[in-house]
């Protein structure tokens, strides 16, 4: 039987630290525990990779271009606002 040392993270805990890890908001001690867990755990490494890819894909969401009509409306409004 594998016995866990108390300072070791299990995967269920590790996944909750991922954002704080990426934000560089973990204490030095927690960061060490997290990184040593990653080194030994291919699943959590894959999980971290998935989170990074999720962030990258979310960044690829582009706003649709602004239609010409909407722009004309706003310019009209702008002239009125400035004129007031």
């Amino acid at each position, binding site marked *: 039987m594998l016995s866990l040392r108390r300072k070791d993270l299990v995967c269920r805990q590790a*996944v909750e630290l991922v954002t704080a890890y990426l934000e560089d908001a973990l204490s030095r001690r927690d960061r060490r525990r997290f990184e040593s867990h990653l080194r030994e755990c291919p699943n959590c490494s894959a999980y971290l990779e998935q989170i990074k890819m999720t962030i990258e894909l979310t960044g690829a*969401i582009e706003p649709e271009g602004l239609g010409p009509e909407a722009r004309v409306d706003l310019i009209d409004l702008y002239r009125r606002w400035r004129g007031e």
Partner: protein
Amino acid sequence: MDVELLSRLRNGNEEAFVKLVSWYQQPMLRLARSMVSSHAVAEEAVQDTWMGVVRGIDRFEGRSALKTWMFRILVNRARSAGSREHLNVPIEALHAVDPSRFDEQGHWADPVDRWTEHSDERLDAAAWVPLLKSALDDLPPRQREVVILRDVEGLSGDETCEVLGISKGNQRILLHRGRSRLREILDAEIERS
């Protein structure tokens, strides 16, 4: 860039305003849409914001980025519009990962998928963005706001706190839950494909 644009805006330069609108109309609409229940209300909030920008530009002190300042106006307008609508707030998930994915010791019960064979490969963004957009729409509003500002608009954590008027800790929790949920949805689809 902000400084020059700002002085042109203050002088009532129409071209500068058009530029500002073409950059920020869609991002603002998307953020507003995430806070209120209908497109019409979101458009109204954005229009109110442009008015607030035009009228307030002389008072804007430039202590934060122009974008942060505008988003903050928007959030205030959208929130007051949203509170008039009495939205039902969905219950937020407490776990980054569905607890049933772990065994009794807290280890992954099944292997976690590598989305690409090699970790340096990229997923085809065009294929997954539509799914991600609808997943973003389904997030609880506060998570959605944070994810949009951080991961779509590229604001920093501090700027996001300023725009939404929330603490750093709160911002991180909302970001964590939002990103975790998006990952979960992508994972389910990627596994099926």
